[in-house]
């Protein structure tokens, strides 16, 4: 039996010490009628066999390593320096538990403190927690914070239609028991001015995305002012990699900045695990959910790190906790800390610029094709939408079969007004040659 070390002699000696005759005797308390079910599971295989099986499953997929990829929409194909995975593979990191005993967990604790620091410095915010599951759940936790900040007296949340559809769905799932009114995202055309128009004294929070789902970027300072004028909080969801180039959302006077850290050194992995980062202004630190690492000293005056402000958390506050969250995604936070350290100040800026310039090149080339229209007006980061002359599914079928390219996202699935519109993402992984192939493919499929 895999990973079970007992010999028959040891088993017998242990049963004797416990005072039972057989293993079955250990389960007297279990109702006899339902005890020891005959599970319909396949028989065990060896490590050699299981890897063959998994290899076959892996090869039954296309993946961005073997197929050119222009698909984004919240998960991105980025370069991960080899150093990241080598650190993640250290057993001392990945087989450790949550650092509840700080004396033997300084590695995890300091790494998370550094992650918190890096994210604060990237976003310009005062405090970061040790992470949430992903950007979507981080946004839901932001809504909960805003709700508690107003002591349950306000009931309206304004959401930009530019926020990732999955994030908005997740917020709605989380809040379904709380009787709240979520507005703003039903109309694609609701820009910042329109969202500001929806703010009133019942609004607890307005949330926007930066860059948004369509890659668009804008300055939210005016929206922030409008929100604060009615006492509502401004929450900005970011792509942290974009912050290598773009103005940090703290400059819009954001109260909460969340986002998904997958672009920071985490492979796409069919959507998970990922990394939800969560940062706030200082005044909200005690209302913030999730783990928090703080600096302190030991009895000898030596610096050390501990989980702190635990009284916010479920294991102490129980039903008065603002959230039930127990786990963070510590290993993914470590991945992004290593990524940001390895890339550094110049590397992150370089990557962001490569994405930006390549995407703009692609947009210009595609926009110039007959039958294609660039939907985006104004500034964008590394994603843009184009109206295609044929349904997106047909275009993508052609791109895959004829050009070996994974095409962009079919926006019609989430926004009925954007039928036949494709969302294209370009990253540092896409060479000019690949972009030119995409352009050529798009040109060809328009005529087929």
């Amino acid at each position, binding site marked *: 039996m895999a990973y079970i070390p007992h010999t028959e002699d040891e088993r017998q000696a242990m049963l004797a010490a416990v005072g039972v005759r057989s*293993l079955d005797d250990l389960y007297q308390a279990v109702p006899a009628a339902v005890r020891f079910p005959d599970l319909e599971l396949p028989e065990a295989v060896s490590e050699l066999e299981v890897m063959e099986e998994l290899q076959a499953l892996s090869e039954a997929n296309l993946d961005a390593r073997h197929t050119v990829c222009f698909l984004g929409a919240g998960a991105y194909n980025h370069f991960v320096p080899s150093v990241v995975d080598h650190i993640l593979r250290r057993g001392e990191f990945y087989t450790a*538990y949550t650092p509840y005993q700080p004396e033997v967990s300084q590695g995890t604790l300091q790494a998370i403190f550094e992650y918190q620091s890096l994210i604060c410095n990237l976003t310009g915010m005062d405090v970061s927690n040790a992470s949430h599951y992903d950007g979507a759940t981080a946004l839901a936790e932001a809504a909960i914070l805003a709700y508690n900040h107003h002591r349950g007296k306000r009931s309206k949340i304004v959401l930009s239609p530019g926020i990732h559809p999955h994030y908005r769905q997740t917020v709605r799932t989380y809040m379904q028991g709380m009787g709240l009114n979520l507005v703003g995202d039903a109309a694609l055309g609701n820009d910042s001015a329109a969202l500001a128009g929806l703010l009133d004294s019942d609004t607890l929070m307005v949330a926007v995305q930066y860059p948004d789902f369509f890659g668009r970027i804008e300055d939210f300072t005016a929206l922030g002012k409008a929100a604060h004028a009615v006492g509502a909080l401004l929450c900005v969801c970011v792509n942290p990699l974009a912050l290598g180039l773009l103005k940090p959302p703290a400059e819009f006077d954001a109260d909460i900045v969340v986002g998904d850290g997958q672009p920071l050194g985490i492979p796409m992995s069919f959507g*998970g*695990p990922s990394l939800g980062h969560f940062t706030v202004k200082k005044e909200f630190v005690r209302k913030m959910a999730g783990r928090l690492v703080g600096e302190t000293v030991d009895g000898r005056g030596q610096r050390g790190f501990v989980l702190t402000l635990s009284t916010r958390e479920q294991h102490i506050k129980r039903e008065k906790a603002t959230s039930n969250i127990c786990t963070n995604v510590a290993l993914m936070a470590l991945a992004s800390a290593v990524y940001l350290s390895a890339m550094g100040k110049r590397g992150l800026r370089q990557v962001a610029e490569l994405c930006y310039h390549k995407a703009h090149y692609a947009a210009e080339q595609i926009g110039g094709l007959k039958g294609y229209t660039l939907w985006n007006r104004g500034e964008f980061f590394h994603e843009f939408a184009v109206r295609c002359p044929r349904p997106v599914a047909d275009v993508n079928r052609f791109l895959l079969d004829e050009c070996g390219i994974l095409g962009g996202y079919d926006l019609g699935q989430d926004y009925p007004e954007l039928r036949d519109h494709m969302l294209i993402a370009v990253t540092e992984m896409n060479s000019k040659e690949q972009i030119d192939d995409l352009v050529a493919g798009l040109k060809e499929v328009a005529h087929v």
Partner: protein
Amino acid sequence: MSEPLIYDLSAPGRPGVPLPAPDVPAAGLPKGLVRKDLPLPELSEIDVVRHFVRLSQLNHSIDTGFYPLGSCTMKYNPKVNEDAARLPGFAFSHPLQDPETAQGNLALMYSLQEWLCEIGGFAGISLQPAAGAHGELTGILIIRAYHQARGDARRTKILIPNSAHGTNPATTAMSGMQVVELPSDARGNVDLAALRAACDDTVAGLMLTNPNTLGLFEEHVQEVVEQIHACGGLVYGDGANMNALLGVVRPGDLGIDVMHYNLHKTFSTPHGGGGPGSGPVGVCEKLVDFLPGPIVEVIEAGDEDEAPLFGLVMPAQSIGRVKAFHGHFGMLVRAYTYIRMQGKAGMRAIADHAVLNANYVRARLRGTYHVPYDRICMHEFVAEGRWAEAPDIRALDVAKRLMDFGFHPPTNYFPLIVHEALMIEPTESESKQVLDAFAEVMLRIAEEARTNPDILHSAPHVTPVGRLDEVKAAKDLVLCCRPAELGEPAKRG
């Protein structure tokens, strides 16, 4: 001697990872939206490697030594799982690529769905929730949605035993429901009389952990379930303690209506220093339509020549998504690998040896440590870390002293219903040798408590840091550091 912070190792101009030069013309940068500075460190690769390797060496981990944290199931994390998850078809697949191009992933998820249902005795399952607490929220929202769909808006209460993990009441509050706490009886079970008194038509359900947080199998579990069902409520099972039940009993067969699994406990996916986990939720037949989605289904049946075609489908009355995309796929690959290597017989063997190991340690410590509910336990048991003859010694002191011997302490101060609780869960991964070594040290510490209490009070002695000032950490909040170049001191709160 502490490891410097990453910012302290930084030097302006240090070259980081080399990147390719741009191969396209430069576009104009967005006006007014470009940041002026970027306060990230500058390090060369060797600095990064040394820093994080040295940090890793400050940790205790399963790969280093015994880790008997009750309720966490710190079993061995197989290395083949890590290789499996990194196969390129898994690691570099995009969640939104056409399902026809991701059939390997969907087949894997479908098999895992089937196997977890079989193991737990459930009719349907979602692999989307990212962790146990996330699965709990999902489960309670499903119960709520079920009653709403029946047109019953009166059911606003969730009954929770006082031995429950803090996530249980926190989850209930988050779902907009009301917590009603139930006492435990003298044998550590749910108090049946109190349960009967609390059951009425305002009860949406009960949250039950079985085995409970004392490591004991609920002696009246079927009565408890019947009582709740009789008043029209549903039973939520906290599956954190599944390790004791694999191949022994299926929670679904006991009448549990909805349950979350912790893949990072029972199914060997690594804890990662605090995540990522994965918390799939299984349900009985009548709750299948309410699962969060999408879930994997067979779109076109296969035959001898062709594999079935799998697709992603949203259940008919789904509570909605609980996160972006499909769930922690990387952890699902690891769990799949583990179940394949354990196989049918392996499930029962895991439970047998987890339960045997816990009872063995309990037998070795009996007489020296008081075990308040001293009967055959499941995969864990709770002892008290205190003695009348050593009035100044607390569970905390025992825990800290254990670190001097290379053991991670058991869970402290949980469950709340035992004084100075030490919750010990060896798991099936440990050999008799390791358990004997642990028992010897525990007995020695008990002796020291009487003869040399100071050595416990001042423990740990051999760890990288001593006991840390948690009061200072909470009062003088220092939660991040800023680089000096920002003109502020190197640290700020």
